[in-house]
């Protein structure tokens, strides 16, 4: 599953930050998931649990959903991505590479595929909370 690859990225990046900041343990990792990529939350959650490192033994993984906000560069229309509006094959393609949304989706007002993904594209690491040795 693609979610596993992204979970790996979250764990690796969080480990790097913890090391940089001298954390001796991580208590919470907050991940923002953009709806455009249509990530399966259960799978991502499961993958994160499985991939956790000793530093994260007690860490809570919090997943937050961010709606896919799109804005047309031609007419300025702003709208929210609705996964129900695209077919299965298109959905799968966007899941792999969210930018191919430009191939399958267009502005609801003027039909242009030249839109901006304002937020809610994919997986981002929002915050890490942890404990330093002298805390």
């Amino acid at each position, binding site marked *: 599953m693609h979610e596993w690859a*992204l979970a790996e*990225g979250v764990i690796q990046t969080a480990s790097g930050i913890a090391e940089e900041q001298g954390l001796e343990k991580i208590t919470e990792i907050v991940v923002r998931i953009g709806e455009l990529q249509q990530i399966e939350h259960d799978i991502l959650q499961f993958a994160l649990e499985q991939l956790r490192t000793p530093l994260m033994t007690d860490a809570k993984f919090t997943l937050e959903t961010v709606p896919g906000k799109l804005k047309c560069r031609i007419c300025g229309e702003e709208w929210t991505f609705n996964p129900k509006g695209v077919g299965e094959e298109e959905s799968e393609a966007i899941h792999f590479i*969210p930018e191919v949304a430009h191939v399958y989706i267009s502005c609801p007002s003027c039909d242009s595929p030249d839109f901006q993904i304002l937020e809610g594209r994919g997986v981002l690491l929002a915050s890490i909370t942890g404990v330093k040795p002298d805390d």
Partner: protein
Amino acid sequence: MIDPRPGLISRRLEGVDEIIAVSSGKGGVGKSIVASTLALHLAEKGHSVGLLDLDFTSPATHVILGIDGLFPEEEYGILPPVAHGIKYMSITFFALDKPAPLRGADVSDAIIELLAITRWGDLDRLVIDLPPGLGDATLDVIRFVEGIRFLVVTTPSKVAYETVRKQLTLLKRLRVPVIGVVENMARKPSDYVSLNVENDGALYLGAIGYDEGLEESIGDEARLKETKFYAEASKLYSTIN
């Protein structure tokens, strides 16, 4: 907010021994045909080879190699399907045959995603076909792909070479190793390109002549390998290590 993907890229490529980007400041000089035949040549020599098409606007290697009806498998990321013994990845799997109107930031995001999720496994060589110019795809592979080397393609035309010269200058400034320059579509003997390449401090790898018969072989791997182009190109590729 931190993007968790860039850190994954070196991990995805850690099993790959050599990464060769086929590039040119100029469009239409034969990058895609060189990248495709280089991958075929390396596979023929017994190497394990991957081919990554990063030209999102006009992907062409699947057309040249006649790759059709394949799709990557999803397994802890995505596994490139194998065509003609080559592990193959391209935006075309996801955009199908439809136009993908992507702007700079989108191109970068899509490239990072592809590099971060594609599991190449162990490879002797990964060949990357780049779009023309010094834009996002070129700058992104330089930024994210450690140890990448450039194979630069030009034609005998002054119009092409003047742009290629700028590219060589840029690559030098960015300290990106250049394997050498291939002169493609040569129609008559001339030392214009070889002298200039030497002057610009790069290695001239040789010329591939204009091949009238090439077009008929596009899309057919077996016939491609029988072209004059392939014979000349292979000889030249054997000098690359």
